[in-house]
């Protein structure tokens, strides 16, 4: 008879993905197809609440694809379909009665390229709340969102100017502010800093650390230093060429605490990647 506490520890050693206790998003044995082509296989990952989880891996390994599955943005691609189960607080995201619009309101997304709408800064932030019929004080919400995105001081005097008048880094923070204005629970970030200079990158990273108190963040990044700086957990994706499959197939190679992934990974391929031997 083993003590329950000890058993949990043993289990967590045996199965590292069960470390997290509050799982927000869970992928179980997910395969992602574009038509007949299987782009990603065997993804099982638990995203813990109020933590930053990083997806790293070489190009074309399906990190962004998996990320987009979490808020059903891949639905926009006609030939896309998912096999396996993705759940959000236990609710199947791909169940027939689930409204993707509802999913996206709870699971927001920040894109690789800053993509403000061709509207004023104010309207960029107000857009999301307006479409979801926000009843409260819009001015206040805009201010809080911009403050949280550490952009308020830079734009407070020009809220009625176009979102395009901002610099790239400011635009990206505007997009983050826009996303948190709808008050989602999870924020997905698809290489949010890849188009930004180092100073803007640092600002966005600091921002993520701030946001983590209220949100759960998943970030796809090519920058391993970034993963070590911001992420609590890291998932390493890899890709392999499959004969006759018409291309590379991505898969989840390893998922663990960031520190473990970078200092003492289980898989040799992970070690090779994080030490810069390929990728």
């Amino acid at each position, binding site marked *: 008879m083993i003590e329950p506490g000890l058993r949990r520890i043993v289990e967590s050693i045996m199965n590292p993905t069960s470390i997290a206790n509050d799982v927000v998003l869970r992928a179980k044995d997910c395969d992602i197809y574009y038509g007949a082509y299987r782009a990603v296989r065997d993804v099982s990952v638990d995203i813990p609440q109020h933590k930053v989880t990083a997806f790293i891996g070489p190009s074309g390994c399906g990190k962004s694809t998996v990320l987009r599955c979490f*808020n059903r*943005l891949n639905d*926009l691609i*006609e030939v896309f379909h998912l096999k396996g189960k993705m759940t959000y607080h236990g609710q199947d995201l791909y169940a027939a009665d689930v409204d993707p*619009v*509802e*999913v*996206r*309101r*709870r699971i*927001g*997304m920040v*894109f690789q*390229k800053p*993509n*403000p*709408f*061709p*509207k004023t800064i104010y309207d960029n932030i107000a*857009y*999301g709340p*307006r*479409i*979801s019929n926000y009843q409260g004080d819009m001015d206040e919400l805009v201010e809080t969102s911009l403050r949280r995105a550490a952009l308020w001081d830079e734009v407070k005097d020009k809220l009625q100017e*176009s979102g*395009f008048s901002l610099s790239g880094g400011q635009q990206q923070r505007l*997009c983050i502010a*826009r*996303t948190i204005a*709808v008050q*989602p629970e999870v924020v997905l970030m698809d290489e949010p800093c890849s188009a930004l200079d180092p100073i803007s990158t640092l600002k966005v990273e600091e921002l993520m650390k701030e946001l983590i108190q209220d949100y759960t963040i998943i970030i796809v990044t090519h920058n391993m230093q970034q993963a070590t700086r911001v992420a609590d957990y890291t998932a390493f994706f890899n890709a392999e060429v499959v004969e006759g499959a018409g291309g590379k197939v991505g898969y989840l190679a390893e998922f663990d605490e960031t520190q473990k992934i970078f200092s003492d990974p289980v898989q040799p391929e992970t070690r090779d990647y994080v030490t810069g031997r390929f990728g």
Partner: protein
Amino acid sequence: MTVGIPSPPPSSRSRSATEKELDRLFEGTALTFALFILLLLVAIGLLVLVQAWPAVKEYGLSFLWTSAWNPVEGRQAFGVLPMVYGTLLTSALSLLIAVPLGLGTALFLSENFIPLKIRTVLVFLVELLAAIPSVVYGLWGIFVLIPALKWCFGLFGVSFTGPSILAASLVLSVMILPIITAISRDSLAALPPELRQGSYGLGATRWGTIFRVLIPAAISGIVGGVMLALGRAMGETMAVTMLVGNANTISSSLLQPGNTIASLLANQFAEAKGIQVAALMYAAFILVILTLIVNILADWIVRKLQAKYD
């Protein structure tokens, strides 16, 4: 601080004199062509004005607000008001019909409601609509549209003679539909996909995305297309002549015949002489001015909208 010696360019080959000469030559050629267009436009305008001069002297600006059009010798009187009214009314009506229809078609063809293959065919069909000669539209109006309208109005006991402002406007709307559709679709399709994803990512519906993000973002292209269509509607001659009834009167009923400037010119030029030619030229000049005003207005609107969104 000393200025370092710049490192030599990666290729030591310098541009030869002939190459530079060719560049200049190309620039000059392009400039000539551009000036030629400008000259052509000025020449046409001047020529029309010169020919219209006798009428301008005779009738002055009152030409614009008198309704008499009498070419009979000895009792000549010319006023273009009914035709200006007819031109503006038919154009406005056709826009009223074609803008929602064209924009709706453009949205349908730029969204993924149906598979791409069928969409491609539909886009081609819409563009084919623009290739139909206007005389064919006129014939279609006479043999299909007017009988159909007669039947329709007959159901309500309304007498409908046939050629009328309404018939002309309806055919005009079909004629300008492909312009509005093609240009709107192009400007919608040219929007960066990130915009659409950004909106969906915030939990917007397709409906909300279209009306709050996509249309505002493409508005300058859409307005540009509408204005181009308006220009076409105002200047359209053949089909309108066949359907408008060519009555130089102002009638408040759309079911009554009317006339447009372009139609007036097409009808009367062959037999006109003397001051009537001048009067027709004056009318033509007014049409040119009207189109010019529309174009300037369009440009102004597009600028205004762009300033708001860029």
